[in-house]
């Protein structure tokens, strides 16, 4: 790998890179810069010249108790979503990895939900878990109001987490199955000879060796839960952020403020805080968890 082909001129490689650069500039840097600018100005909702207001937008955001509610909801959603997707994906992957008859077919079935758009899954689950007609209706008939996401914020939050887990468990499953298949078979065999049963083997041998995959998935799923387009789509289609802001996750609140409330400045300030939060989380994960991951 010491010989490299190098372009002689500067304009040819630039020309090759130009389409990609243009796309990134148009859809990433420009909006990002615009958001930063809006966050520090007061943007009139119906056009006109913006006024620089310093940190006033941030002060307003932090003073709003509904904002802190949405931070809490987002944290709960992302944590519960991450844990449940990884747990379900892991259990399914461990089961499929045993290569019992029919595991090829169920492997396909387990991946399938990932191909379905989050909002569509959300719509479906609105009916599947509807308190009047869905799976829980018979429980509600015995214990009234046992399950009512239209009435209780906590139930609604559980509902969107279920939708998120249903869809994303297939994604973690793929990675975890691939990870399990790269654990040498002789290790589980050696553990079997040492007297360890399937569940003990999973806990003692397979899961520790999956640590890099689990770490990767934690970072990815936390980010997905906080800012993923699916998070917005699921909440918007399933609960509309309600009832009483019970599922008002940060991304949903930002979009609502910006495009329904036409408060571009406030939404931009919230976006910046959200980006900062994601960066802090990722930093913490890399700083404190990654070093405990065995890559060998």
């Amino acid at each position, binding site marked *: 790998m010491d010989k490299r082909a190098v372009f002689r001129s500067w304009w040819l490689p630039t020309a090759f890179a130009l389409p990609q650069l243009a796309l990134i500039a148009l859809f990433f840097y420009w909006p990002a810069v615009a958001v930063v600018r809006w966050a520090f100005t007061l943007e009139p909702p119906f056009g006109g010249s913006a006024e620089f207001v310093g940190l006033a937008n941030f002060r307003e955001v932090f003073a709003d108790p509904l904002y802190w509610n949405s931070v809490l909801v987002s944290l709960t959603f992302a944590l519960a979503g991450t844990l449940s997707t990884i747990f379900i994906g892991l259990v399914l992957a461990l089961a499929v990895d045993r290569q019992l008859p029919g595991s090829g077919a169920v492997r396909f079935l387990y991946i399938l939900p990932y191909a379905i758009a989050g909002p569509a899954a959300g719509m479906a689950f609105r009916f599947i878990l509807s308190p009047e007609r869905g799976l829980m209706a018979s429980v509600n008939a015995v214990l009234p109001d046992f399950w009512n996401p239209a009435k209780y914020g906590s139930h609604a939050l559980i509902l969107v987490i279920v939708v998120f887990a249903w869809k994303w468990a297939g994604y973690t499953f793929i990675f975890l199955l691939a990870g399990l298949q790269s654990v*040498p078979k*002789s*290790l589980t*065999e*050696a*553990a*079997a*000879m*040492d*007297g*360890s*049963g399937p569940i*003990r083997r999973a806990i*003692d*041998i397979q899961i*520790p*060796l999956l*640590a890099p995959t689990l770490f990767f998935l934690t970072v990815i799923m936390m980010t997905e839960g906080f800012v993923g387009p699916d998070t917005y789509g699921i909440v918007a289609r399933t609960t509309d952020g309600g009832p009483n802001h019970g599922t008002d996750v940060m991304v949903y609140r930002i979009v609502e403020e910006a495009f329904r409330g036409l408060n571009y400045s406030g939404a931009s300030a919230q976006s910046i805080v959200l980006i900062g939060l994601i960066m802090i989380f990722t930093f913490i994960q890399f700083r404190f968890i990654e070093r405990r991951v*065995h890559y*060998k």
Partner: protein
Amino acid sequence: MADITIRAVRKSYGKTATLHGIDLAFASGEFVVILGPSGCGKSTLLRMIAGLEDITGGEIEINGRVVNALEPRERGCAMVFQNYALYPHMTVADNIGYALKVAGVPKAERRTRIAETARIVGLGDYLERKPAALSGGQRQRVAMARAIIREPGVFLFDEPLSNLDATLRVTMRAEIRKLHQRLSATSVFVTHDQVEAMTLADKLVVMNKGHVEQVGQPLDIYHRPASTFVASFIGAPPMNLIDCSIDATDAVARHEHLAIPVPAAISAALGGRAVTLGIRPEECRVLPVGQGLPARVDFVEELGSGRIVHVAFGSRIFAAAIPADIRVVPGDLIGLALPEAQLHVFHRETGKRIDVTHSTGRLGRHQGQDAAPQAAEAV
């Protein structure tokens, strides 16, 4: 201490059969080596004893108990894997003690037993290291310690030395043998290396294509191979084989223009038959041209202690081990002497050994276990 009985054991994957009815019996405390080329089914057989492969047909009995339906942990076997299969995330101590931990042995007792076992294999100073920080030989010792600590009735070794370099292999071979003398557990050792097989085995099992070719003590197998396969698989360089027809009137075997002298008993018993004659390179003698049978030197391999000459002999290339003081160069014409008493006779079609009792000239078959049925299939 446990004895193992294997009865008509078969293995197939889908429609492909890899083991075709294996019958073997290993006595308690015996060191058994299963030798064969890769793909002969020897590892599969070992893994079936361990409980890591299902048994398609037949029975395996350990200590008088049929184990077909038992989980690996219930069979009382410990296994050393070819790639050691050490748990990479655990320290050496945890690796060695894992079986005890699973068995729920209290921590204090566990610690003393780990220390004791590590001392036996000479790993006392490495208990806190991870496997990645060990050399190949040390990993091998951890793998053995992990097997020893369970005090199993049966030790299974799946080509445990094949990942080591040549020097270490010789050392570990000796250590495995010493360990066996000390623990006297029944050991089953699978290898494709005939030197390992000859040096380690109390009982040697030679396998080929899913069949047992021969079972016996290493020297018996070396001196009386039951088939041309065994003859050419054991010994380095392998036994020279040449197709001949035994002359009915003279005591010679003819191959093209060559007439190889054979004992009178052989020509009396097998006159007119087509056979394969075999002779070990160590038994061939090189004479000046004009004596013995004519041959031409093809090339010479130096071994230091002696040399191997490969000679064109009829349409065959024969190897002959000669002392260092005989000098030959490629192209030399020489004479080759094949001592009559050292000739092995094999059936031309089946490859099975034919024994001729010298005194009576009576024809007899070698008593190789289950020799006859698979021979027909192998040809």
